[in-house]
């Protein structure tokens, strides 16, 4: 019964081909000599050179990186707090509303989130004079609002699988709640928090629609620049940029994935040792 049927295996292979073939083709054509992106004209790395001379793209990438890093840090703090409240505080006043608010941004169409945040920023500027104009600040706030939902889910589901007895034991021994969190809970859920940070970083780095609404003159992030280029047609230097981004993500995800698996193994080993020592 444990064997996969041929149908399932075939569907799996087809599914993965569907997911990866476009990416593989895009990488292949980034080394194409010809300007006609999909007609092979010989191997060349000239588009990479062109990419690194394109000041507009480099500037946009740096701006995107700064926003993504700020967003990820803020979203991780907010998301961890929300995840902690939802997973550990039982039933408190306003819990259903917090649950709703914390998970709705996951599925909310981006055009709605973007439009509503822009209208808020405009109304706030009229009422209290802040935020003055739109740019890095408004983009970061907007990104934090939708990406904290992802961190919340990651942290909440990690806490849900975590045995509460360790925290209770520390509490019984007289540790105050804040101390329990920093000494016991935080180190255990740290990999989940890190994963949440990376997720928030990627979401922000990638976002086009919400950014387009809340951005101002002079602050075009990388997706905004790419979108305006792509609308005019396929261009080989975008293929080169895509290849670099895919390779960076693949390397990073693999390293992080291996690190997580090793951590898990080490933890399992420690648990086994502890059990053996007790016997």
């Amino acid at each position, binding site marked *: 019964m444990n064997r996969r049927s041929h149908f399932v295996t075939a569907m799996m292979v087809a599914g993965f081909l569907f997911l990866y073939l*476009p990416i593989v083709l895009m990488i292949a054509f980034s080394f194409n000599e010809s300007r006609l992106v999909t007609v092979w004209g010989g191997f060349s790395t000239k588009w990479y050179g062109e990419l690194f001379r394109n000041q507009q793209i480099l500037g946009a990438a740096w701006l995107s990186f700064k926003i993504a890093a700020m967003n990820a840090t803020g979203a991780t703090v907010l998301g961890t707090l929300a995840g902690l409240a939802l997973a550990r505080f039982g039933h*408190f006043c306003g819990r259903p509303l917090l649950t709703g608010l914390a998970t709705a941004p996951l599925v909310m169409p981006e055009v709605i989130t973007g*439009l*509503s945040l822009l209208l808020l920023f405009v109304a706030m500027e009229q009422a209290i004079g802040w935020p003055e104009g739109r740019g890095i600040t408004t983009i970061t706030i907007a990104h934090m609002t939708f990406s904290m939902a992802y961190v919340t889910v990651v942290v909440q589901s990690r806490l849900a699988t975590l045995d509460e007895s360790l925290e209770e034991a520390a509490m019984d021994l007289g540790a105050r709640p804040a101390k329990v969190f920093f000494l016991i809970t935080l180190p255990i859920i740290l990999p989940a928090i890190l994963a949440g940070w990376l997720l928030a970083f990627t979401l922000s780095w990638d976002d086009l629609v919400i950014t387009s609404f809340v951005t101002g003159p002079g602050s075009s992030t990388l997706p905004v620049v790419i979108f305006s280029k792509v609308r005019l047609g396929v261009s080989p230097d975008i293929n080169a940029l895509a290849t670099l981004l895919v390779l960076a993500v693949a390397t990073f995800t693999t390293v992080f994935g291996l690190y997580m698996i090793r951590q898990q193994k080490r933890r399992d080993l420690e648990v086994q040792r502890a059990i053996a020592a007790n016997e």
Partner: protein
Amino acid sequence: MSKPFLLGELLAWIRAHGPWRWASQGLRARGYSGRTLVTAVPYLWLALFFLLPFLIVLKISVSEMQLAMPPYQPLVSWISDGVIALRISFENYLFLLEDSLYWKSYLNSIRTAAISTVICLLIGYPMAYGIARSPAAWRNLLLLLVMLPFWTSFLLRVYAWIGILKNNGVINNLLMALGIIDEPIVMLQTNFAMYIGIVYSYLPFMVLPLYTAIEKLDQSLLEAAANLGCRPVKAFFRITVPLTMTGIIAGCMLVFIPAVGEFVIPALLGGPDSLMIGRVLWEEFFNNRDWPVASAVAIVMLFVLVIPIMIYQRSQGQQLGAHR
């Protein structure tokens, strides 16, 4: 007396007498604790930047357009001597009803999203099933492979399909070189391209919740069914599908809801006649600069999506609750 000691003493004094202690005692006396603070920070953030904006969208959707910045008239205005005028207009909503473009876009968005969701489910279920039934050593790698496209740029993955589908793209070049067709098939800027784009982009969102549900499924139930003479296909529909329903619902909602309001895919892959409401809202806002109508479009979209969002949240709660 050394400096660190002084500093330590100072800190101890502040902790004992300073405003922190006073504040925390005061809060404690009123029944507040650290928990309140932990809950209050994300709560206030979401109330300010997620809940309040919807109220503002609602407000602007019933105001009138004007040629200024911001391009809408205030609802409440002080005329003179403390006389307050409140102007609410439902013109924008009437406009949405009258112009067939809007309700056609809503229907088309819902249909496109629903069909894409079904296709995602049909491809995603066997994939998730296959991963869950793979040897344990393979499972993490295969999951990582599903996740990887999700971590890479959404925009660039949609862009990759332009090069494949366009008239002198990979598919047409291949088919013409093989002599199967003489003229390129028009695929880019059609509904076909849009479906491919949506299914391709949202497939990981379908596979992950399905995998979580299928992995938890108790194999012995299927063995018992087989021993009692149940055919595999029947066992699949009578046992596997009902027991993985939370995953199916979560996956379908994760695809359907964002797909209804999708903008990037119809803008890059869809044709001029593929009316999607996300694109209509975008054009109303950026091209026509009609903020009140764009707000009305958003509010109606929200009403359309309220029920799917509630279904999603319930299934999400069940999945998180099931861990305990």
